[in-house]
């Protein structure tokens, strides 16, 4: 059971030369190539809170600084805080580290939501500066626009019948250089002296916050803690960068696991899995047991070739050819049926529904920390392309099998 799935031990080469397990890859049927997360266009489909699973619109998320207003995180251990009723008022407490709002300066309040968060003391000043900069931006944009336009100043002659006069006045106003309203700061000339006691005094670490919780609340300045609003999560939609078709898109609800669009590589490319743990012995020929599964709903012809050039092990089985029947979703026939137990040859040991068990012989010169067996996988499947004539072409990718230690 400890080795359930072990998907990271078989790596496929993506079209962008990255290596990834097959379950992490996608297959674009329009371009007939493998795609991974790094060579697809990612866009955020919806933002939601991971705790209350409520969908938050993008604009709303931006005004709330990407935080949920109903769910709170413990400032010490990041667990979810739960609300409790103390009789007259409500307080929040953490079930893991037992921190509660009684340890903060708010203690308790009448409602469960809208707990005050730590605020920047310079907030007002900063927003004033930001507003000022926006005015400058408008001014500069208006000046750029006037250079582009061939303007003949007729504004003064416009009647306000169509609201043009108002537009003209607005534009004229934008052209005027705004005056700086934000308070100006004097540069500091004398710095406070750095005393030796900063380095020599003994710090009581039990009273100060951990680095992690200080990073979570940069405005706390050391010791004060308040409940932290839960950060929102984003859900991604993947798109092929070449043909811009969607490769994966979930349904609208954040708690849904149903895909509207899915082009997982697993359903188009034969999947190689380790069948048994391999025992490698130095200086001999060892068997490596792998299985190949066809998860596609069409028949797949497969050719496995040894790729001894960039492999740390030498594969003695040069080529294996076989075809795999389609995966039948509706067959709930769960009898332990192995369709052929008698080995077809030295390589193909057994066949069971849409999978074959293979025994590859590997020559081991030296057993290293990580032993890599390189293979070339060629397959032909009519579903690998949108057009039926191209579906009969052979596709090819390189595969790395990580065999581990002896």
């Amino acid at each position, binding site marked *: 059971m400890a080795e359930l799935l072990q998907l990271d031990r078989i790596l496929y080469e993506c079209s962008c030369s990255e290596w990834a397990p097959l379950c992490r890859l996608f297959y674009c049927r329009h371009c007939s190539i493998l795609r991974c997360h790094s060579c697809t266009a990612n866009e955020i489909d919806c933002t939601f809170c991971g705790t209350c*699973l409520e969908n938050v619109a993008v604009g709303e998320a931006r005004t709330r600084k990407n935080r949920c207003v109903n769910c709170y995180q413990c400032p010490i251990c990041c667990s979810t805080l739960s609300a409790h009723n103390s009789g007259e008022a409500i307080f929040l407490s953490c079930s893991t580290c037992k921190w509660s709002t009684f340890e903060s300066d708010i203690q308790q309040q009448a409602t469960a939501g809208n707990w005050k968060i730590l605020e920047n003391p310079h907030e007002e000043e900063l927003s004033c500066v930001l507003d000022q900069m926006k005015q400058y931006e408008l001014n500069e944009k208006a000046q750029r626009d006037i250079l582009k336009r061939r303007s003949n100043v007729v504004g003064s002659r416009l009647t306000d019948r169509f609201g043009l006069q108002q537009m003209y006045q607005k534009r004229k106003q934008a052209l005027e250089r705004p005056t700086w309203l934000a308070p100006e700061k004097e540069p500091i000339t004398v710095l406070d002296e750095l005393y030796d006691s900063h380095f020599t005094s003994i710090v009581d670490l039990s009273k100060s916050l951990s680095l992690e919780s200080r990073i979570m609340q940069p405005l706390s300045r050391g010791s004060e803690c308040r409940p932290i609003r839960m950060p929102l999560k984003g859900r991604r939609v993947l798109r092929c960068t070449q043909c811009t078709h969607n490769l994966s898109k979930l349904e609208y609800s954040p708690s849904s*696991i149903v895909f509207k669009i899915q082009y997982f590589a697993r359903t188009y490319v034969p999947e190689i899995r380790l069948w048994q743990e391999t025992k490698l012995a130095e200086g001999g020929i060892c068997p490596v047991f792998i299985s190949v599964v066809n998860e596609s709903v069409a028949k797949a012809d497969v050719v496995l070739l040894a790729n001894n050039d960039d492999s740390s092990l030498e594969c003695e089985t040069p080529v294996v050819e076989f075809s795999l029947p389609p995966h039948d979703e509706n067959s709930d026939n769960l009898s332990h049926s192995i369709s052929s137990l008698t080995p077809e040859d030295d390589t193909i040991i057994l066949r069971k529904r849409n999978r074959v068990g293979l025994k590859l012989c590997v020559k081991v010169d030296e057993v290293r920390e990580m032993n890599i067996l390189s293979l070339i996988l060629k397959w032909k499947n009519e579903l690998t392309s949108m057009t039926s004539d191209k579906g009969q072409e052979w596709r090819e990718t390189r595969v790395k099998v990580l065999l581990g230690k002896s």
Partner: protein
Amino acid sequence: MDEGLVVVKLSPDEYTQTNSGNKIFKNASIFGSQNIIIHGKSILMRDCMLRGDLTGIRMGKFCFIGERTLIRASHRKFSKGATMFPMHVGDCVIVEEDCVLVAAQIGSYTHIGKGAIVGRSSIIKECCKVEAGAVIPSDSTFPPFSVIAGNPARVVGRVPECTQELISQAAKELYESYVIQR
């Protein structure tokens, strides 16, 4: 590892198969069986414990409960006393050995690693992976497709998008590969 090609034999002296296809360890501690609903084709391994005497436990198809795992209902204290909550386990849930599950809901296609502890009234949505040794705090909720690890546990990553197919296939193959025969 390819679960579809491995055969694990369970002794008929120790294990029995029910009409709905559940393979159950005969001496498993199952209390309050009238409150436990298992939809079939599930495996309860050696020394696992199901506390149906507290409140109901409802389990879907193709679940695998590992050795020495405890499943019990959660409770919550209110001003007028404590209330027990029934536990819902979805389809194709794989729970490895030595786990303690006191959750309110464990969504379908979830894989819970060895020795994990799922705290009181926590909700794990579908297609999640709980790493071995994780301790999930009580009353926490985890969205679908999260990898959960640590003590206290938090989301540390995302599982592959095709987890539903991967885990449902692995759960069905596990059910097939555990055979009651001498």
